């Protein structure tokens, strides 16, 4: 009997320790949303002469996040080494033909941006995304382990997470070289190193990433921060991606992206 009591007591003790560990950090768990540029800005519905307008929320995209506490100064564009500027321009000029994402390719980290859903556990944090290339996820260990020694190169890299005060910091290495880290031809090599910082700002979450790429960038690029708002919109499996427009392209026009 006393043995049973001891086991139960230990279970409660362990649970208490885990809860206490979680309680030390802000809880990032939840579903988050942000809007990015996209027009048409609304859908007009007409039934028997009655018109309703369903607007698209673009407020989060256009809000300036630079004044939020903890946001690091950023620049709109990365600083490539001078000898690589022509290559970047050429890729950007022909983006609708050269960007892998245009053809259902994986955006990878950091281009995919912040996660749509965060599940914060005691020893790992899980990021879930919705994306037309599929619906990727990342399991980010937070138990103090180092990066894997020989990770296979990938679009989302090898991630480890830790807390620096109130900020969850994700260190990402192990990239391949077949994604872009942003629009306008931002190519990289397998030397890319990304640091994501995520923290609470009231009810919202702020995400900001820094790209270190010593082979192609003259200095690290601190990306503009993104403000995420709590969302009740459930995650949904992205429909399959079937790109069939390429043979019809008659010029290099392309629209804004993130």
């Amino acid at each position: 009997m006393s043995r049973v009591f001891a086991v139960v007591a230990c279970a409660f003790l362990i649970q208490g320790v885990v809860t206490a560990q979680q309680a030390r950090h802000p809880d990032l768990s939840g579903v988050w949303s942000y809007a990015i540029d996209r027009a048409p800005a609304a859908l007009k519905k007409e039934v028997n002469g009655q018109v309703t307008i369903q607007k698209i929320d673009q407020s989060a995209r256009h809000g300036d996040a630079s004044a939020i506490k903890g946001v690091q100064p950023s620049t709109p564009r990365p600083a490539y080494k001078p000898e690589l500027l022509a290559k970047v321009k050429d890729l950007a000029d022909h983006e609708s033909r050269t960007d892998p994402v245009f053809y259902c390719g994986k955006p990878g980290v950091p281009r995919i941006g912040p996660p749509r859903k965060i599940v914060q556990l005691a020893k790992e944090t899980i990021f879930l995304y919705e994306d037309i290339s599929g619906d990727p996820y990342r399991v980010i260990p937070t138990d103090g382990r180092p990066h894997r020694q020989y990770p296979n190169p990938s679009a989302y890299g090898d991630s480890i997470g830790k807390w620096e005060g109130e900020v969850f910091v994700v260190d990402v290495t192990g990239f391949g070289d077949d994604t872009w880290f942003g629009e306008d031809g931002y190519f990289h090599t397998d030397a890319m190193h990304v640091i994501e910082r995520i923290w609470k700002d009231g009810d919202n979450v702020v995400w900001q990433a820094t790209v270190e790429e010593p082979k192609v960038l003259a200095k690290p690029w601190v990306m503009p921060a993104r403000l995420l708002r709590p969302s009740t919109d459930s995650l949904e499996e992205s429909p399959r991606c079937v790109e069939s427009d390429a043979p019809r392209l008659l010029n290099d026009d392309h629209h804004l992206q993130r």
Partner: protein
Amino acid sequence: MRFMVSAAAFMLFSVLAVGSLQAHHSPSAIFDMSKRVDITGTLTRVDWINPHIVLAIEAKGNGGKVDQWTFQSNPPSWYKSVGLARADFAKAIGHEITVEAVKARDGSLYGYMQKIKLPDGTSYELINSAEPK
């Protein structure tokens, strides 16, 4: 086939999605944004796919032949954000609908759907402003 070129100027639009990366070509890379067509015919297919949803229509063409039109529109996530799902269009499969679109520059029976009128009289139109037109 009802084939009408609208003289109305048309807006340039993009198709990016909330929380879902959607980088793609501009419609102007494929479509003549000044050449608007109205097509009435039977809806035969609705593909709820990325990067654009696709609708197929059989319409009466010249000399009694049947023209197979294909229209793309915004991505599924865009329609989700304005409260529409595949079923809102698919319920009209086998029935006559009218689509207003901008036509492909290559002359094919291909367009970018701007407005659709369903058999029950409901119409949906992409607009560039939250104000009624």
